[in-house]
């Protein structure tokens, strides 16, 4: 069933090959890499220009108006925070539960987390009316005038949770990177060597160092989990606690957002891994088994998410209040929201999940690539459908009802955010191995098989 790749016949051979193949991206550069990075940089520059224009002219250049004060930029913020939930979901939970197939996926997931968060946090800042004041208020706090931030506001919880999450995921990545930095240090010269020497923090691979690194990894995994859950819960409370917006004030929002984030995040990791596999020739490491397991995980996550989606709708309309029914009617049946809703529900659940039930789909890189991209299209629209219709139809004072059309600037910013994350992932791949070298080696050593009667069953050595 599982097709294990044989990397070599002696441990030394395996070691050498892993070092060589997984350091490819750090030590050598292909031309197509620079073409891709150059293109992405162009898009990022364009979006940067859009940001500058907006800061210069004012939020007026967006499509926002009363009462739809939040639109594409906040949707995009929620989307990227959602994507950032992949890293911890994969690394921490799978590390704690000792799933063997996690090994090639963890680093990529963590890197996606870090850059998605960095991108996400830009959006609330640039979308505020006076970004320069927001910066001044957020870092550092406005102590000079004796006004402490209003801790009752979810907008204070947000930066707190996100910066905590960002800090801890960077720590998480760095701890896991130390042994790999040492490998890179031993294979580079000059300035690069000096930098890797610092980053490797004197790693020599002694038993004590290994033990400390493992303990640190486990501790961080356990500690980062509550942070991980809190981040998207808090993002959901940006909306949930607003009692004036009918579609937002729902008790289920926190777990609904978290599980939705995991759904989109894990899908994004699959997409990223398939791209990296193609770009850096990692056929031996990112195998069909890996995406098969991720696909199975996705079925469970997606179905749990769908359950929350279902009860969110069910328990919002069961009281048959006019305001709520009117809002849902608009969301589901009135163009353009009806088209968005249809796209979202198909791409977010009803196309990918039935496909994932087939083993052939789960084990096909092409299909997994398509389906996971579909999921993220759906999940982006989902956030939009949560945020905007609720605002457009606020309360019973029908006089102010409105709708929303994004401006070119906002669309540019959204596209730019995707380019920004992709460009960052590619750039960092020149500095760090995106597949954990030591983890793969460990997996190679722990691989084993046992015989039961006539059958040979793949097995793993267990330390505990």
């Amino acid at each position, binding site marked *: *069933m*599982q097709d294990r790749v044989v990397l070599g016949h002696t441990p030394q051979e395996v070691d050498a090959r892993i070092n060589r193949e997984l350091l490819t991206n750090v030590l050598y550069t292909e031309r197509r890499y620079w073409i891709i990075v150059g293109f992405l940089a162009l898009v990022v520059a364009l979006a940067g220009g859009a940001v500058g224009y907006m800061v210069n002219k004012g939020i007026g250049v967006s499509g926002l108006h009363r009462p739809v004060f939040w639109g594409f930029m906040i949707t995009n913020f929620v989307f990227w925070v959602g994507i950032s939930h992949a890293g911890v979901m994969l690394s921490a939970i799978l590390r*704690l539960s000792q799933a*063997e197939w996690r090994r090639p996926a963890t680093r990529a997931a963590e890197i996606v987390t870090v850059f998605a968060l960095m991108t996400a946090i830009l959006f609330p800042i640039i979308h505020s009316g006076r970004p320069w004041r927001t910066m001044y208020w957020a870092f550092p706090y406005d102590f000079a005038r004796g006004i402490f931030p209003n801790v009752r506001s979810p907008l204070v919880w947000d930066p707190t949770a996100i910066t905590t999450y960002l800090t801890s995921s960077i720590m998480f990545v760095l701890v896991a990177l130390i042994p790999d930095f040492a490998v890179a240090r031993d294979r580079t010269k000059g300035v690069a060597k000096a930098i890797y020497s610092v980053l490797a923090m004197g790693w020599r691979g002694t*038993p004590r160092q290994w*033990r400390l690194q*493992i*303990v640190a990894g*486990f501790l961080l995994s*356990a500690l980062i989990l*509550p942070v991980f*859950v809190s981040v998207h*819960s808090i993002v*959901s*409370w940006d909306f*949930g*606690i607003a*009692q004036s917006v009918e579609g937002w*004030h*729902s*008790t*289920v*929002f*926190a*777990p609904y957002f978290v599980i939705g984030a995991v759904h989109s995040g894990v899908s994004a990791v699959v997409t990223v891994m398939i791209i990296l596999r193609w770009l850096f020739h990692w056929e031996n490491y990112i195998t069909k088994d890996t995406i098969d397991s991720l696909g199975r995980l996705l079925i469970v996550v997606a179905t749990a998410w769908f*359950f*929350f989606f279902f*009860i*969110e709708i*069910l*328990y*919002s309309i*069961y*009281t*048959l*209040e006019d305001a709520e029914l009117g809002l849902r009617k608009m969301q589901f049946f009135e163009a353009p929201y009806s088209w968005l809703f249809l796209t979202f529900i198909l791409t977010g659940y009803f196309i990918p999940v039935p496909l994932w039930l087939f083993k052939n789909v789960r084990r096909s890189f092409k299909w997994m690539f398509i389906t996971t991209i579909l999921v993220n299209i759906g999940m982006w629209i989902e956030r939009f459908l949560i945020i905007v219709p609720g605002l457009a139809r606020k309360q019973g004072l029908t006089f102010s009802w409105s709708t929303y059309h994004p401006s070119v600037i906002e669309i540019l910013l959204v596209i730019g955010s995707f380019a920004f994350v992709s460009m960052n992932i590619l750039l960092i791949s020149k500095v760090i191995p995106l597949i954990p070298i030591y983890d793969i080696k460990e997996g190679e050593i722990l691989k*084993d098989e*046992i015989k*039961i009667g006539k059958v040979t*069953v*793949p*097995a*793993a*050595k*267990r*330390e*505990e």
Partner: protein
Amino acid sequence: MSSTVHDAHTAHHEGEGEHHYQPQVLTMPHAEVTQTVLRVASTMGRTYKLALALFGGLFIAGFIAFIVRAQDGFDTFTPWGYLMATFAFIFTTAMSAPIFSVTQRMVRSHWRRPMGRSAEIMSVAGIVGALMFIPLVLMLPNAADRKSIWFGFPGAPHVYQLAGLIGIALLGMAILYVSSLPDLAAIRDHGKGWRKSLATKLAPKFRGTPRQWKGVKAMLMVLGALYFLFLIGVHTMIASDFALSLVPGWKDAIFPAWHAISGLQSAVASTILVTFLLYKFGGYKDYISVDQFWGASKIMLALSLLWMYFWLSGFMIFWYGRQPVEQALIKLFFAESYRFPWAMAVCLNFAVPFLLLIWNGARKSMIVPTIVACSILLGTFFDRIRIYVASFSVADVRADALHNIHVEPFLENPPPHLPGTADVFMILGGIGGAIFLIMLAMKFFPPISIWEVTEGMLYRKKKRFLKREIMVMGKPD
């Protein structure tokens, strides 16, 4: 988790004083397992018989209490709050327990093997649950002219509620039957007396051919998936028809999900408790080790955290919403009328598990997880009282109840409704009846799954690796 934990079974390693825990690897012949388990399962001691008589008596007393209470009729909800709470307790604990076995089988954990059967056996409590549920369902007014999740479907809610509950009880017992088929075959071949003849009737054809094994395993997967869907669905239905839609203005989407999480948490807790009792008093010391408690208590810890998280997610919205309806609900359920059971639930369902189980040393013992399991069961009991007695005491199912609430919320909070003598007996009777059935079933179905334990023995091997012995674990796909 951490590699610095000390344990008696371990060997020294590299002279650094570091100990490695080795999971228990059973090395007895298969025939011996079959023999001993069947022997233990078919002996009934004096204490056992006494306990059985006691719980049977309680059940009869509870039934009489029900008849007495029924003299006053079923017109008002308030007097039946405690019966509902007891039913909900049995449903959340014993009737949900098979989910533990189902999920663990799906993720192929090895440590669950000796525990799964006792979780499945608890499904027989569904008989008592269904008996208690019937009068309660009949009390519900028709869904046609009021606000409920049924939107006036014909037959709602009675038909669907009953179908759901009886369905889940039957599914649980079906899982028990299919998973014990191979063991029933063993009883048929090696047992004596009525057990043998009953087992022959139940498992006439199982011979252990590869096709039959495949069939059993596929059947278990299908039934398990169905059971999972049913469990979440029935939790949702019960939570919304007996609590949410009875209370005017209560609009709370997470509540059913939270109810289900509470069911998963209590399922693990009751399984741990039963496993401990089997270890201590049941005579299955050889098969149950600290592995089971260690593995299950991790899940119990996670579910306890989730329990609190789900509650907080919902409460946060009401707390910040500050609408009059929300304030009235908070006063009723948490802050004023029912604050005592709520405080108990928070302590026992969250604080105790959290503070005890975060320590690896505590998880890796038998006694601490058992204490936590008892605490969770007690906490769940208080919590069910809080939810259902409170809901029944303000129940207003008039067609326009939800609309009126927007103008005039139920500002005067009802005082807590305390149990009367009949209520106490109904509580004891319901729980006693459930325990009675479970104890009885354990003397027929072997509470240790013989085939799963012996299968586990195949997948775990000890091997020498470098300087020490380690375990190699088979990972079949």
